[in-house]
């Protein structure tokens, strides 16, 4: 399976994503933001970081990068595009997924492990995954997902919510919401579910010596689903 990770100026989880993808069998290429075309890929990843310093709005300048035309076309033709953290922020700025990401409710950067409940398994990302609740890691300042009432209805009707923050037993409540996001949303799909944006970093959970191994589960499952 071939993957591409886009490096924007200010990306800082690009290497971590490269390491993770290769560890689980992807042939990964790093792609520079100023390139015109993404190489032939089964998966394109927009990694975490602070693209363009998060100036103006998180993700907004990166969403206008030269490479993004190619990424958007790829997504629109059904290709898998995954945006993690800053990558999610870029995705909402392109309009590939609905909504916006606001500053965290308590106005503080937050770095910790969280539990998320997988809300939908009828998609390439989570199909066949043998857990409903996984432990992921978050590290962000602007992960407070927000959208209009009409949008949320549409998102729910289309089963576009990918994962919700919850406790270890899968209970989705305010107290388990780290950043104030609407409906505890941690990640969403586009309508067709080939584009996934999420705040948690599965690439930081790929080793028992690190924060945990549910990231391994995610990547193993993903590559199996692509085969």
């Amino acid at each position, binding site marked *: 399976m071939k993957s591409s990770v886009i490096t924007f100026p200010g990306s*800082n989880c690009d290497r971590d994503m490269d390491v993770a993808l290769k560890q689980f069998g992807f042939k990964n290429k790093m792609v520079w933001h100023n390139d015109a075309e993404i190489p032939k890929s089964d998966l394109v990843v927009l990694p975490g970081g602070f693209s363009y310093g*998060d100036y103006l709005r998180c993700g907004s300048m990166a969403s206008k990068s030269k490479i993004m035309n190619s990424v958007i076309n790829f997504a629109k033709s059904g290709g898998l595009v995954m945006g993690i953290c800053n990558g999610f922020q870029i995705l909402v700025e392109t309009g590939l997924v609905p909504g916006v990401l606001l500053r965290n409710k308590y106005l503080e950067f937050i770095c910790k492990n969280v539990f998320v409940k997988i809300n939908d398994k009828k998609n390439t990302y989570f199909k066949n995954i043998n857990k409903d609740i996984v432990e992921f890691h978050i590290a962000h300042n602007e992960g407070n997902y927000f959208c209009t009432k009409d949008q949320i209805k549409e998102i729910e009707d289309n089963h576009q919510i990918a994962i919700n923050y919850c406790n270890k037993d899968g209970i989705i409540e305010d107290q388990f919401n780290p950043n104030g996001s609407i409906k505890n949303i941690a990640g969403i799909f586009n309508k067709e579910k080939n584009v996934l944006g999420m705040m948690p970093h599965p690439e930081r959970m790929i080793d028992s010596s690190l924060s945990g191994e549910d990231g391994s589960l995610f990547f193993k499952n993903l590559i199996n689903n692509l085969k």
Partner: protein
Amino acid sequence: MIVNEQVAIDHGLKKDEYAKICELLKRIPNITELGIFSAMWNEHCSYKSSRLHLKKLPTKGKQVIQGPGENAGVIDIEDNDAIVFKIESHNHPSFIEPYQGAATGVGGIMRDVFTMGARPIANLNSIHFGSPQHKKTKNLLRGVVHGIGGYGNCMGVPTIAGQTSFDSSYNGNILVNAMTLGLVKKDKIFYSKAAGLNKPVIYVGSKTGRDGIHGASMASASFDEKIEEKKPTVQVGDPFTEKLLLEACLELMSGDSIIAIQDMGAAGLTSSSIEMASKGNLGIEINLNKVPCRESKMTPYEIMLSESQERMLIVLENGKEEHAKKIFDKWNLDFAVIGKTTKSKKIELYFDNQQVANIPVNTLVENSPMYDRKWKKTKLPKKNKIKRGDLKNLKIIDVLKKVLANPNVCSKEWIWQQYDHTVMGDTIQKPGGDSGVVRVHGTNKAVAASVDSSAVYCWAHPLTGGKQVVCESFRNLISVGAKPIAITNCLNFGSPENYENMGEFVECVQGIGEAAEYLNFPVVSGNVSFYNQTKEEGIKPTPSIGGVGLIKDYKKMITMEFKEKNNIVLVIGKTEGHIDQSLLARNILDQKNGPPPEINLFNEKNIGETLLKLIDNEYIQSAHDVSLGGILTAVSKMCIKGNKGINLKKPKYLINEIEYFFAEDQGRYIIEVTKKDQKKVTDFLKKNAVHFDELGTINENELYINDKTKVTIDELKTSNKNWLIDYMSK
């Protein structure tokens, strides 16, 4: 502007220093030259009060590749890998403008590390605030934490450990010390020594603005009621540009274009150009019209003294300019050839086709002032007599809860959750343990780092305090299973012109030196921050020690949380019952005098090395050094982190319960072993003449003391966790 004695004094120079400048130049300097002298001769850059004493520190060792004198120290961690590291203060700016002050402190130290060709892999910090009740403390703490996070998080470098303390002596002068570790191949280390004539001198990075002019001079003076006026001397950071600068520099460094490279830190273009020339025994000629400027009509004086961040000066090989420019263009950074190396051994500056400065380099560096300041020795205070009656009235669990909720002991999770501590995917020990640990990417090795200071001990007796901090750093590394290799120190003191403050400095340095020598734990980098005082009131002497150690097989790393029910817990190292200057004495008994606990370097080394062997043989399940708050505090933290309880028994010998459990005798660790290994471990301890007491057995979730007192671990956790969160949300 006409230069005279008064102008020199306004620049922070002393009368005799100005006279010396005129004598060295054999003329009166112009204003640009005076600015350059004032920047190079201030305390921050010249170390004029400290140089004499710093020379006494041990700086060499088998694993030391580069000691003090470069941008950072470098140590060998085998297999052609090396670690570059340093700690630096940004105290004065952080008090004036906490966010930017702390952020640029972090930015500055990372630049020092990647200037040497190393990719930063971990950040640490040591931050000290005034009393929690002081009106400024909360905002300063919030600002500093946001600033450290804002910069480090954006750079994508994990912040893996730190230290936060509160003491009223920092009310008018907080401390922000930032430390960075970087990883480099041994044969790809870059230095700041220029070499060769007519080599192009290159400016890269951000444009130069008017921010931070005289920052280094500001950091070399005490505060008074006019500090608000000093805001413009605080630099403004842009971590995004620094991230680009990091990537661009590392890309250029992968080739062979660079002869020398130096970041523009304190005193900006002035100190960077002079340092490169001085080390290379060369001259440098710069055309200031070529310097990329952010603001219009900047004068040579302003350009030379600006402390705008995220800039580097490089001496390139001839003919490599195009290749280098391409890289910096790719990263959207300014790139300008601004001058060349010369044989004149002078700094010659041109602006609008006129020479605006012409100064022999040696007058700025070798001939800079050096003072043997007067200092006063601190006598060892007399021991207090603790009244047994006072102790008998104390309820041990109440005391424990108070100690766990003490601002200097309580959980700092509120702080470190705001730092990205997992980016780069190699953090195997997060903040909250004895040391932070990161793997050396793609290998079985890991590097442990910790930062420590004990201002109370240093204040009570600087010589003992100095030794203690080094020992504590040693212990924190050993507790995670790392072999201690070397340290970096950030020496935060009051005014060197005050005999007592100077005495504190001299004796702390002596203590640091003695311990570092004995423990084979050399000092490879550091910085000195004097004048940490507002008006007459100085801070408690606060040397911060950043220690670095190596774990050869990261799978053998130890963490402090209790692991398994029914395992046995021991304390190794002897408990004599030293209460003076302990948290118990100062905060519970309200007794603030007396000597700090003694340091026995022989025991320290022997116990540490013995424990390291036990860890290497995989006999140790968890370990934690005993520090502030004594045995019971240490054990409680291990319970809290592991969600386990313990049945504790005070050994029969010695002293009463409170003394035994809260004494702060040094050189002790708590260890957890399985029943199966217990005898092997105790035999080995006996063989190595290491004293130990068996403390008890791990249970489900309650803490019992001598079978009669009990408390749930959840209760202790609440005491420990809530203080800071409550304080910050009030």
